């Protein structure tokens, strides 16, 4: 006969997270001590420090939820519209590279890749970045007079520009059409929440970073001025550039002066809602839920409960039915994702989670 072994709660949580979760839920608690439909508090920090100290950063955001910190930095790439390989629709998206710091090096994990792909697609289908707003207009030309460099823009200095712009001085870059590409780099420190909650955090941080973007002006630098100048510029050049045959592309340079920057025109406000002003009004707020069944005993029947904002090992590993909803405050749903783990998702649970998601989106304004 084997002796019965009793484990203290924290040991049980590690060796049998599903049982630990059941025990918690049966007394009306979650392992993280939140209520069933309570969300983890969030802090949105002033993430503009990155932007101010790095000329190549156009938007940034830092979000904290418990100890989990999401740092999102957006830098710019440029693409030549005339040789654009991918067909460009009326709306654009960000291109996120997500890394969850978990003490390993090498290639990204499945979780990193799935998160990045879903953020990219969600932003694209939320239709908040019109492709036109990323077009680079009025490309300037750098000219050197009396050993002093200045930049002439066609819209700001039309007369001088028409003088400078002779066919030999200006390569065909001036007449080509370019667009910015938003490259977002997301680092996640101290992951303690579930993948579904990480998606919510990444979505929030992307919207937050996007709404802080101001796009710089771009000019064609003088090629020899560049070889002699910034060491930063030299190393920022990508290898890929050698694949681009037109030499002029290599001289496209970002004007670092902040006065000439213009904010990225996002469709953040809801066209149907005249009162909408907040940065999340159109994009919506992402919320996630899990469905778990508490088995019945002699007195109680088995019932299924809805848990909001999944966190921790127990909830991550033993809740398979997930609902993710992006809703905005004018009651429009931007995305809904259902994963049927076990037992199915009832219409009632779906309705309830949409209700809570809408409520949360409205609450977020305050």
């Amino acid at each position, binding site marked *: 006969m084997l002796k019965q072994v009793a484990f203290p709660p924290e040991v049980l949580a590690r060796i049998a997270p599903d049982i630990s979760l059941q025990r918690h839920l049966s007394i009306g608690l979650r392992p993280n001590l939140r209520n069933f439909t309570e969300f983890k508090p969030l802090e949105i920090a002033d993430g503009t420090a990155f932007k101010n100290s790095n000329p190549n*950063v156009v938007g940034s955001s830092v979000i904290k939820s418990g100890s989990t910190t999401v740092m999102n930095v957006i830098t710019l790439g440029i693409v030549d519209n005339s040789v654009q390989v991918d067909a460009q629709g009326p709306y654009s998206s960000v291109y996120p590279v997500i890394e969850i710091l978990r003490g390993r090096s090498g290639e990204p994990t499945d979780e990193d890749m799935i998160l990045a792909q879903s953020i990219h697609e969600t932003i694209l289908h939320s239709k908040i970045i019109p492709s036109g707003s990323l077009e680079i207009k009025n490309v300037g030309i750098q000219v050197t007079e009396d050993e002093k460099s200045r930049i002439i823009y066609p819209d700001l200095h039309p007369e001088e520009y028409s003088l400078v712009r002779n066919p030999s001085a200006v390569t065909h870059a001036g007449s080509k059409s370019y667009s910015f590409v938003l490259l977002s780099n997301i680092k996640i420190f101290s992951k303690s929440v579930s993948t579904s909650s990480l998606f919510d955090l990444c979505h929030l941080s992307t919207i937050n970073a996007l709404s802080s973007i101001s796009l710089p002006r771009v000019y064609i630098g003088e090629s020899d001025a560049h070889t002699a100048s910034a060491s930063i510029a030299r190393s920022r050049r990508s290898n890929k550039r050698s694949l681009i045959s037109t030499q002029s592309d290599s001289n496209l340079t970002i004007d670092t002066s902040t006065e000439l920057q213009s904010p990225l025109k996002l469709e953040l406000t809801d066209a149907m809602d005249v009162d909408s002003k907040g940065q999340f009004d159109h994009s919506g707020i992402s919320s996630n839920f899990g469905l778990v069944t508490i088995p019945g005993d002699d007195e109680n029947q088995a019932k299924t409960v809805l848990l909001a904002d999944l966190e921790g090992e127990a909830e991550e590993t033993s809740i398979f039915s997930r609902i993710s909803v992006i809703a905005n405050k004018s009651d429009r749903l931007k995305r809904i994702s259902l994963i049927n783990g076990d037992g199915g998702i009832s219409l009632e649970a779906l309705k309830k989670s949409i209700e809570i998601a809408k409520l949360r989106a409205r609450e977020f304004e305050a």
Partner: protein
Amino acid sequence: MSERRRLLGPANTFIPNIGITSTTEEAVKTRKRDEIRKFFLKTGLIENANGSAYLEADGTIVQVLVFGPRPIRGSFIERASFSVECKFLPHIAQPNEGIFNTGSNNNNGNYRTGLTNIEQKISSYIETSLLPSIILEKYPKSTIDVFITVISSDSIEDHGGKTTNSGLLNLVNWVLNCSSVALADSGIELKDIVSSGVVRLDKEGIVLDPQETGGEGIDGLVSFMNLRNDEIVGFWMEGDEDLEEKDVERIIDGCNTMSKKIRANINSYLLEQAS
């Protein structure tokens, strides 16, 4: 071959150059020649690592994670293996990158494969300096891995391709001190907490914790185990002037003075945490 694991934009995306900044330079805060800048230190912010430390010193922000001792797979080893990986956030300009990082990395501005030369150099310096302090024999069949993220760096001031050695050494100094504290936070058994100092030797003598970059002089970074008879565990010099034996002594002494001051701060922080 195209990258399939990361979303890097349309196939022909390229990274524009960054123009020369038109904003006026910030006035350099002047400190006394033997004064060390203030720094902010906090341990244990990261929950999924065994130890962590966060350090801010002016514009330099460093986060260090320690994972270990973690079991390894495969054959038995008698002592733990130790590795250090230092990475900058991809948008940060790395000190001296014009010299060392010459287009060798696949860099699209948003990710890199592997470490850049500067990251390699820093990683290997931190690794060799910390290695003597760890009692590896206590952890057979394990690894101890240190992951350093440079979140912000103000070490390059001029964008004009001038060498800025003290910028690099200054950064390494803070990275090293932060890593030692993270190791201590992880509870891994140590012989001593490694700390370091950085000085510049110019015509007027030694400057502790030099701030202004460029200019003439020799920069030195020396790391110590101050409680173990000031044993030197790391030594890095940069500069193009001739160096005499007594100059080296002065640099080591200067670094030791600074190292002891930093160590005193670390000690009082750790004591406060423990109580």
